[in-house]
């Protein structure tokens, strides 16, 4: 077990070639929003982050610090104000076609059934409809929604919708996964089931993952690395911790390991400061 605040962390497990060419490479990223009032809001500032192929990296940070903003920039949905995004060695220009994105908000097409929502993801790849439906059914079964194929999104629970969205993202087999609080609306038990499901799927076919969560325990249980962001505005990365816990992991059981507690303590020491900062900012803004 090790912890390090050195940036960026060199990945000892990844091969030399992979280390030379990370799947995701953010360099000197600034993102500033122009507000309607004419003010500028610097959301994140000077972000450097590398994600190696097959590496599971989780970003934690106080609410509003710019986690979703970072994912949006990596997805190519948001153009950074400064710095650049490189995907597998190539500068990102426009949308990131290599990435699948699980959005924080509901993103399923409400007018399509669960199976159609999943199957339609294959249409841009030119997969014939019948074949797409068959594969979509397989994916629904894999995320435990076999019997829900014909439901429309509003007839599914929040967790079921997230699972449909997960299947929709994974069916395209993207090389990079961007996941923004995918288990946000779920209860603790379902979170664990989903977390284990995600780890199984990921272990079977390792991708670079950029994962966002509010739940530090979940972050540690899932990840190879946990990155801590500071409270905004102009948030930066203030901690980068390697999680050297053995895999395969079980989300529930791994929490009981002593090594887990040590890592948790180290990361929380860094995160707590930022959360408190964000909290007191919010209080000031209220007064």
């Amino acid at each position, binding site marked *: 077990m090790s912890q390090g605040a050195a940036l960026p962390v060199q990945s000892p497990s990844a091969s030399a070639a992979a280390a030379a060419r990370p799947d995701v490479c953010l360099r000197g990223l600034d993102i500033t929003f122009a507000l309607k009032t004419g003010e500028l809001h610097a959301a994140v500032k000077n972000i450097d982050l590398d994600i190696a192929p097959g590496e599971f990296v989780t970003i934690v940070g106080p609410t509003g610090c710019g986690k979703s903003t970072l994912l949006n920039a990596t*997805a190519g*949905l948001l153009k950074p104000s400064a710095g650049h995004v490189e995907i597998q060695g190539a500068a990102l220009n426009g*949308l*990131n*076609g290599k*990435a*699948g*994105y699980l*959005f924080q*908000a*509901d*993103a*399923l*097409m*409400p*007018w*399509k*059934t669960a199976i159609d929502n999943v199957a*339609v*993801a294959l*249409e*841009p*790849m030119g997969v014939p409809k019948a074949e797409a439906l068959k594969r979509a059914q397989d994916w629904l079964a894999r995320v435990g929604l076999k019997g829900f194929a014909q439901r*429309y*999104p*509003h*007839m599914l629970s929040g967790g079921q919708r997230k699972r449909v*969205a997960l299947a*929709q993202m994974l069916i*395209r087999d993207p090389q990079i996964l961007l996941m923004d609080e995918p288990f946000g609306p779920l209860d603790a038990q379902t979170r664990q089931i989903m977390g284990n499901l995600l780890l199984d799927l990921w272990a079977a076919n390792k991708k670079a993952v950029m994962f966002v969560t509010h739940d530090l325990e979940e972050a540690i249980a899932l990840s190879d690395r946990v990155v801590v962001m500071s409270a905004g505005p102009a948030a930066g990365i203030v901690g980068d911790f390697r999680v050297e816990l053995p895999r395969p992991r079980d989300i529930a059981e791994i929490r009981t390991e002593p090594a887990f507690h040590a890592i948790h303590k180290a990361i929380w020491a860094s995160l707590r400061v930022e959360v408190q900062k964000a909290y007191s900012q919010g209080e000031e803004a209220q007064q």
Partner: protein
Amino acid sequence: MNRVTLIALQLLVGVAFLLVWHLLTTVPVVDGKPLFAPFFFSTPLEVLARTWKDFASGEIWRHLGITLLETVLAFAIGAAGGIVVGFAFARRELLAAVFDPYVKAANALPRVVLAPIFALWFGLGIWSKVALGFTLVFFIVFFNVYQGVKEVSPTVLANARMLGMNERQLLRHVYWPAALTWMFSSLHTSVGFALVGAVVGEYLGSAGGLGYKIHEAESVFDVTGVFSGMVILTIFVIVLDTFVTAIENRLLVWRPDTAAKTA
């Protein structure tokens, strides 16, 4: 309140209305005359008899057919135009910005003033009525489609783009269904307006249709004929509306408010 009671109460209002009408127009009060002269107000039984006769003789079917045809054409052409222009404006900011004042001005114009012009341009046949209905339907559909395309959830759109959809696929899987939802939310209104266009057009000058029938009766002070025409028009509207509701329920199954029912 359960359904049966509700329907009973609804019927009660109708029956009470007819009863009052009947009493006022038939029961002699002064000089052996009823309070309301049947010449001006007709009587429910006469109206019923006339309506029955019109249907039985088959005479009314021709007029119904004409009005239906005009309504359907006005709706179909108006909706098609509204969809195309609504999409174009929603996807091309410049187009919308340039035409905005003209669209607003055109929509503010009372359509009745156009009827004589349409009669001049398209003659007294069905097309002048279709044109009138078109001007009404077009704007409703146009505004709704425009709004629908504009207000697609940004997350749904971003997600679809991340799935690799090109412009055509976005149109088919995202914009089109979103626009349709809005269009269907105004389906009752736009079908209603198509009918208004047809009937008003017929009323102002034609040789057939329900509007013509009513006008014809009015011109000879045949109050029974006018009321009978209105009754037939009402029946027609109810049938049409039921049909629209059926289509709507079928096409919008995915919507929470139409589909979420607890057993």
